[in-house]
């Protein structure tokens, strides 16, 4: 009995984690089930790559993209299962992502649960707001569910909690640490920009340990999550070398991206005003800045605020470094400041409660002293419940001002849906040549068609166009000529039932139609008509 009480005492009230989890994840489940065909365009694209692998077309030989080929292979088992059991790909993917969120949440609870009695009262009381903030953040990610940035935040949240606990000198579960390191390392390999946040936080943990003379806590080589992160980071490139034609990726795609990715850059004003036409996640800029400044002001009140601010700033750096202004690039930053804001509101709740308890001359359970395990469990538990309820009530007015719900700010417009449904049938090859990514995805996945072009979208065209104007013109002219030859070969070899050429990209159109080989290969096609910005051709 006594042992049980001790067990209970050291844990943050479970209902403050379970009830929000059940409520908010149910809301997310409802949101997923209410739009079963919706799937993020990037996820649809990567899943389509995995489908093509199952069909026998491999990255770099059967199709090309900027994303590391291992990304597509990673989703092959999922696509295989969906195909085997005839599961709807979009809905199953979204449910799997919901499963990832649930798993992350449960693991996060397991991480903070251990040695909870060794936290300071304020850190202990902030567990609820932090976890609730994490759930609310996931709730607004509904359109970006499964996006690489979203998965990064899921894995990094666990990584963050593990590193935080280690800095406080607390034990963590080895198995969770290794699993988290592997997952986070893999996502960072898929998109190396994310390493900026991991490294920035690592620097913070290091300097914090040095300055606070907790150097022994910062035992990098004994931290399983870090070792697993580094190991997977090293293993992924090695495994990649087993992929057929991987040389093409490193010799052709990487140099192109390194030299030309800036072709997608937007102006600095558009970048920093977060005004992408593809919707935005950042809420009212003034409210966001106010919360970050408040976080800075309260930085000494809890050991969580400083690392969360570093997370936010590094997230901003990731967004700014990419320079594209796309909403999903801001996901790590938005997660960082949203969690910061949750803590700030939580701290404000505690400030109000302290004020209230002083006025009533009742006991002060809100100070920053270490939790006194001699206090009755009931009182501590009640303090946490009251603090949480205050936090939740106070955060209501700010909930929608800090962040824009992604499903309310992003949508895939129906561009080729009708014509694809009308002119082709499931499993048919269609060749969509476009620089407008979302015109091709997710419609190809949703309608179970196959992209016949090796360029799943013409990511190379804007880059090569820009580079052709530079000093190395001959080289990039050659690259462009190869691209046209590859398009011709794709039409000739895969005989797509429908061809759609993007009308918006002037030079793509001009160069295609001026090439005699294109004219020749199109002899087997009947021109349909222009529709929603595409020139359409049907196999005779």
């Amino acid at each position, binding site marked *: 009995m006594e042992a049980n009480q001790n067990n209970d005492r050291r844990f943050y009230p479970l*209902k*403050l984690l379970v*009830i*929000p989890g*059940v*409520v*908010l994840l149910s*809301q997310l489940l409802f*949101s997923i089930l209410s739009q079963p065909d919706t799937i993020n365009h990037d996820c649809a694209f990567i899943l389509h790559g995995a489908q093509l692998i199952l069909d026998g077309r491999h990255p770099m030989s059967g199709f090309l993209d900027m994303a590391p080929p291992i990304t597509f292979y990673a989703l092959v088992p999922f696509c295989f299962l969906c195909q085997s059991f005839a599961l709807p790909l979009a809905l199953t993917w979204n449910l799997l992502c919901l499963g990832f969120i649930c798993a992350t949440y449960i693991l996060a609870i397991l991480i903070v649960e251990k040695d909870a009695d060794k936290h300071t009262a304020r850190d202990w009381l902030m567990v609820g707001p932090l976890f*609730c903030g994490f759930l*609310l953040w996931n*709730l*607004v990610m509904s*359109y970006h569910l499964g996006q690489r940035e979203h998965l990064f935040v899921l894995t990094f949240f666990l990584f963050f909690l593990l590193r935080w606990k280690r800095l406080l000198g607390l034990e963590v579960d080895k198995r969770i640490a290794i699993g988290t390191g592997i997952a986070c390392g893999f996502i960072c390999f898929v998109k190396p920009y994310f390493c900026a946040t991991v490294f920035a936080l690592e620097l913070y943990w290091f300097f914090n340990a040095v300055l606070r003379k907790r150097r022994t806590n910062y035992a990098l080589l004994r931290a399983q999550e870090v070792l697993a992160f580094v190991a997977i980071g090293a293993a992924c490139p090695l495994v990649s070398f087993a992929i057929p034609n991987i040389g093409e990726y490193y010799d052709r795609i990487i140099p192109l991206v390194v030299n030309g990715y800036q072709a997608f850059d937007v102006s600095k004003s558009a970048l920093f005003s977060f*005004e*992408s*036409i*593809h*919707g*935005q996640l950042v*809420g*009212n800029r003034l409210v966001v800045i106010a919360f970050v400044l408040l976080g800075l002001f309260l930085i000494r009140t809890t050991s969580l605020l400083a690392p969360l601010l570093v997370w936010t700033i590094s997230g901003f750096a990731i967004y700014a470094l990419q320079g594209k202004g796309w909403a999903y690039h801001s996901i790590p930053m938005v997660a960082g400041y949203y969690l910061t804001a949750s803590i700030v509101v939580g701290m404000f709740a505690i400030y109000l409660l302290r004020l209230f308890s002083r006025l009533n001359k009742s006991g002060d359970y809100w100070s920053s002293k270490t939790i006194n395990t001699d206090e009755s469990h009931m009182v501590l538990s009640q303090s946490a*419940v009251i603090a*949480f*309820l205050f936090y*939740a*009530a106070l*955060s*209501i007015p700010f*909930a*929608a*001002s800090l*962040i*824009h*719900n992604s*499903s*309310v*700010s*992003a*949508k895939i*417009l*129906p*561009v080729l849906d009708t014509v694809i449904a009308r002119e082709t049938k499931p499993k048919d090859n269609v060749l969509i040549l476009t620089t407008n990514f979302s015109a091709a995805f997710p419609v190809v996945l949703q309608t179970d068609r196959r992209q016949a072009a090796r360029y799943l979208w013409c990511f190379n065209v804007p880059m090569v166009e820009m580079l052709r104007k530079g000093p190395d013109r001959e080289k990039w002219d050659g690259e462009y000529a190869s691209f046209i030859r590859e398009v011709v070969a794709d039409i000739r070899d895969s005989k797509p039932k429908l061809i759609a*050429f993007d*009308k918006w990209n*002037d*030079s793509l*159109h*001009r160069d295609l*139609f001026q090439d005699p080989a294109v*004219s020749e290969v*199109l002899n087997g096609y009947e*021109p*349909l*008509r*222009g*529709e*929603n910005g595409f*020139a*359409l051709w049907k196999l005779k």
Partner: protein
Amino acid sequence: MNSNRLIGIFESILIGAVVFLNGLIIQTPLPDSWDLKFLDKFSQAIGDVAFLDIYLKRNPKSATGYAARARAYAIDGIWTEVVKNCDQAIELDKDDLALFRLRGKALFELDENAKALADFNHIVDSGSATAEDFSIVSLIDTRLNRFDSAIANANKALEKHAYWSTAFEARALAEYELGEYDKAMLDAQKSIEMYKERPIPFVIMAAILNDRGETDKAISMARDALKRDAACGAAYWQLGVSQDKLKQFNDALSSVNFSLSLATTDEWRAKELGSRALVYLHLEKADLARQDCDAALKINPLCKSAIEARKQI
């Protein structure tokens, strides 16, 4: 049941309720700057459509909401959705002429000319028609083979605005169809003088030059049109006509095929099918020529190129 348990249940319900409320509000776009005035000023098209989908679920009687969504779709050229949203907005607010104008424009783009004309006539009848409105009415008249009315409406547009580029273009097109080549040439040139980036006046000039046998100049004009819009189907059509005259039949076939893949209206499609019929004839593919002739004449019985091809079959 002891009091502790009751308190526990009450707390749990309270926690659930307050968290649920947070979840509901964070998914709600209405606070912050997401109001319709904001949308009017800084339309973001895709974001707007997503927002308005939810806004209109909650406010199904908001004409302003439907109008805003129609405008957002118009930015991306999804004309069928523009028409649907305008229909709903007009049902709720019959007095807003801007909605008729937007729907008329969308119907014009979708080649639904009779319906488009009805919307623009409503604007004309209200006495609020602009130079652009009359110009579009003129272009619709030409599509419907009402060339005299097209010229009259283009003139009305020019009365409203003496330097209106679209009006000159519309009049040039009607004059070309009536065979008044000198006038058409002059109006096409004026249209270009007013606004150099329009490709169609170059196409009209190319068509006139082709008819006059000045093939090299026609090719140059068609290429000028393509410089302004690489996806200008009509320019490929005239390029094809020139290549046909120069006996480069395979090139001509490719060009006319390109133009057909880009054509969004029956007006141009009929012309292009007629021209392809001529190319097929020269390639000694009479069956295909006949098919194209029939298709072109079905769309437009007065199609010049199809009539010419029919004579030769």
